[in-house]
């Protein structure tokens, strides 16, 4: 967790530090002044000698506010700890107790959460006796249900994790599962909540004292000073405003700091942006026949991570190009860069990125929206679960082409029929969850067909589907390409799927293209050692079962650890000295093939 020092975070930290200093030093420095009775200066307003006035015994109110800091903060801390401890115990009970007890504990938490917090506090305070102890217990009781609910929810999410199931099967006792698996994995949000609860407790305690349910004289905290000063607020408002300001300031400080901590924990580390990457070389002449023409595409992330490194590829109309590689090879980010979808803080540079002969940066959203169709791995995430299928498809035509609702809807039903969704009329009126995975993917493809796509980018569109459904979707994609003449970039980790569907295959490794070849040459014509190893490690229905399966030793380098030479060299059996130090360029290898390897070209 790294804290970004934004304005509110700094303010919060400074206020909390000041409060801590006040709690330590206040009574030592101003303790005497706060207790000094002066019969000659009773109930005074603000003056040079008493900036906040005096009370009914002539004691200086500024000194009393400063001294009360320690007591107020100590009470708030005690109340928070009591509330948090009670809440966490209550919240973890459902995961430790047997079924019936767990249900009872859950019901108790539900009932307590539904009960107004302040009422709970006052009730507890009255029952346990007026005074500081009652107020602390009361506020603790008010805080506990929130903590219990948070703990219970967090614990329930961890309890469903596979590692908890594994521990249960290994016979690890419940208590031990709680202490080793559950609590360590939910500690962070609980600690963050503690800071914010502290601010709340401070305000709550001041409220209790103000209502006369809290600290009783001769003790005093900020709430008590506020209570005493309140009757004089019309005559000398400063005597009430002083303690009120102290309460507000402390409350704001704790909440700001808690917010900042929570936000820092939620955000993944954002490192400082490095030097901008060197501008790509002159891209040369554009390919006039290509729908998608990419030259020297690079995607960088802060911290020296470069998942895509100077990638070039072209896709012709009606051609299906497969982009294949293992996870982390940069294939999905390449697709994202084409669609302008690289997530923050990624940075995209290119020598040329043309769609239909024009730079994608110059295309309006409308033009990009109709010329480019994107199909993703998870069709459920690509569809809005709250809207009907037909309406979502129609929206594309309404927004991008200004079609009327009725015309757009007719087209939506037509397109759903085109992707062979049975009963398109009825499907259009259904929500995404009513369709099977394969049907949803068909609907997403139909959505891409609402415009007149010149390029279809499909990122692992069949990975989440069963093999029989996968086969149908691949056939559909082929059919759509034949009908529309759209260029297609098909991204997959599965080289067999790519080999079956595509015309041409581009193999990626560690952000670069290592080989480009016609798909029908994959089985015997692949030249790059990586492509060959990838094909060899894929079991098929004829693999010799008596021999061990081929694999590739080692792992692909992370995007920030790619060396100067060939990235595959450490895992390659053909690698020489030169491979480690010098990177091979992608060069022609036969008529339709290109390979980046010193040893085979």
């Amino acid at each position, binding site marked *: 967790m790294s804290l970004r020092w934004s304005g509110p975070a700094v303010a919060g930290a400074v206020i909390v530090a000041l409060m801590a200093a006040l709690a330590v030093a206040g009574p030592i420095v101003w303790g005497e002044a706060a207790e000094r009775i002066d019969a000659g200066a009773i109930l005074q307003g603000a003056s040079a000698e008493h900036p906040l006035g005096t009370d009914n015994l002539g004691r200086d109110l500024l000194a009393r506010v400063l001294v009360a800091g320690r007591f107020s903060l100590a009470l708030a801390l005690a109340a928070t700890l009591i509330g948090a401890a009670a809440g966490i115990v209550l919240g973890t009970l459902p995961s430790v107790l047997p079924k019936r007890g767990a249900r009872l504990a859950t019901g108790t938490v539900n009932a307590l959460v539904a009960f107004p917090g302040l009422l709970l506090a006052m009730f507890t305070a009255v029952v346990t006796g007026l005074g500081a102890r009652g107020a602390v217990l009361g506020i603790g009781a008010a805080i506990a249900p929130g903590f219990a609910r948070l703990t219970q929810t967090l614990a329930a999410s961890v309890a469903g*994790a*596979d*590692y908890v*199931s*594994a*521990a*249960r*099967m*290994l*016979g*690890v006792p419940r208590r031990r599962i709680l202490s*080793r*698996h559950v609590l*360590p*994995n939910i500690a962070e949000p609980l600690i963050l909540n503690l800071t914010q609860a502290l601010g709340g407790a401070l305000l709550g305690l001041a409220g209790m004292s103000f209502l006369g349910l809290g600290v009783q004289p001769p003790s005093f905290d900020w709430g008590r000073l506020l209570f005493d000063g309140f009757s004089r607020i019309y005559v000398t408002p400063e005597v009430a405003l002083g303690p009120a300001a102290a309460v507000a300031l402390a409350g704001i400080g704790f909440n700001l700091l808690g917010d900042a901590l929570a936000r820092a924990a939620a955000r993944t580390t954002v490192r400082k942006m490095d030097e901008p990457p060197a501008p790509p070389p002159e891209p040369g002449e554009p390919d006039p026949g290509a729908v998608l023409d990419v030259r020297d595409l690079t995607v960088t992330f802060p911290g020296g991570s470069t998942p895509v490194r100077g990638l070039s590829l072209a896709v012709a109309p009606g051609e299906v190009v497969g982009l294949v590689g*293992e*996870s982390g090879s940069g294939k999905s980010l390449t697709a994202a860069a084409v669609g302008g979808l690289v997530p923050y803080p990624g940075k995209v540079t290119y020598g040329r990125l043309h769609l239909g002969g024009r730079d994608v940066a110059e295309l309006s959203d409308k033009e990009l929206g109709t010329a480019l169709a994107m199909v993703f791995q998870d069709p459920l995430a690509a569809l809005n679960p709250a809207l009907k299928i037909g309406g979502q498809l129609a929206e594309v035509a309404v927004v991008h082409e200004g079609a009327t609702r009725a015309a757009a809807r007719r087209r939506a039903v037509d397109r759903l029929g085109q992707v062979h969704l049975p009963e398109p009329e009825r499907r259009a009126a259904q929500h995404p969850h009513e369709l099977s*995975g394969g049907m949803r993917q068909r609907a997403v493809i139909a959505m891409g067909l609402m415009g007149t796509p010149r390029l279809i980018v499909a990122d692992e569109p069949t990975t989440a589907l*069963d*093999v*029989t*459904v*996968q*086969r149908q979707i*691949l056939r559909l994609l082929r059919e759509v390409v034949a009908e529309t003449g759209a260029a297609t970039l098909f991204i997959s*980790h*599965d*080289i*067999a*799927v790519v*080999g*079956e569907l595509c015309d041409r295959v581009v193999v990626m490794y560690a952000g670069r293209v290592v080989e480009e070849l016609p*798909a*029908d*040459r*994959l*089985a*015997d*014509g692949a030249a790059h050692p990586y492509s060959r*190893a*990838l*094909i060899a*490690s*894929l*079991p*098929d*229905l004829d*693999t010799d*079962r008596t021999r*061990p*399966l*081929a*694999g*590739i030793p080692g*792992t692909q380098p992370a995007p920030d650890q790619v060396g100067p030479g060939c990235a595959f060299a450490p895992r390659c059996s053909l690698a020489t000295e030169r491979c480690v130090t010098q990177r091979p360029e992608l060069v022609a290898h036969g008529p339709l093939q290109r390979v980046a390897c010193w040893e085979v070209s």
Partner: protein
Amino acid sequence: MIIQNLTVRFGDFTAVDDVTLEIPDGRVVGLVGESGSGKSSLARAVCGLVPYTGSIEGVRRVQMVFQDPYASLNPRMTVGDTVAEGIRGRDRDSEVKRLLDLVRLPAEVAGRYPRELSGGQRQRVAIARALGGDPGLLVADEITSALDVSVQGAVLNLVRGLRDELGLPMLFISHNLAVVRYVADVVAVMHQGRLVEVGPAEQVVGEPAHDYTRALLAAVPRLRG
């Protein structure tokens, strides 16, 4: 061991419908089927993670290896602590070393955290943890489907090695027929909660008897050429 007349119901929905399946000693039984076929529910029932009717006989302890190696290891526990979880009353350190060695991992990884390991290495740790529980049956639920092809081979080789070295019976579940054919001695095909075909691996793949098995086989993507 034998699973007899096992049925799993979730409310009105019958996920596993009266399945009887034998897992012979020292054999790997591969279970294939598409999502929703009930294969994962059957696995979870065998592991005692979901309620079922019917009986499971002839097995003392069942351990499971899960699909997602990124979610099945506690991120706050070292590899050594994770592997040691099932070890009872034996010398912990030497036992952890022996288990890591069994899954071909160097002893040094015991001090590391899961985030420092690759997907394939994590899956080996999960297998070592399961072996630590001294299982009479190992259930492997789609253990390679979250891995890259380049490391899948090594994990499948490991699975076969464990069968040969330890004689450990296994229920190996996958949607990928090619993978199941490679590791399993017996293949069982599941469809809509029922077993539609069971037989020796080569026979089921070479001469499928059921239409559904044929449809599955026809859909397996193959390289042309």
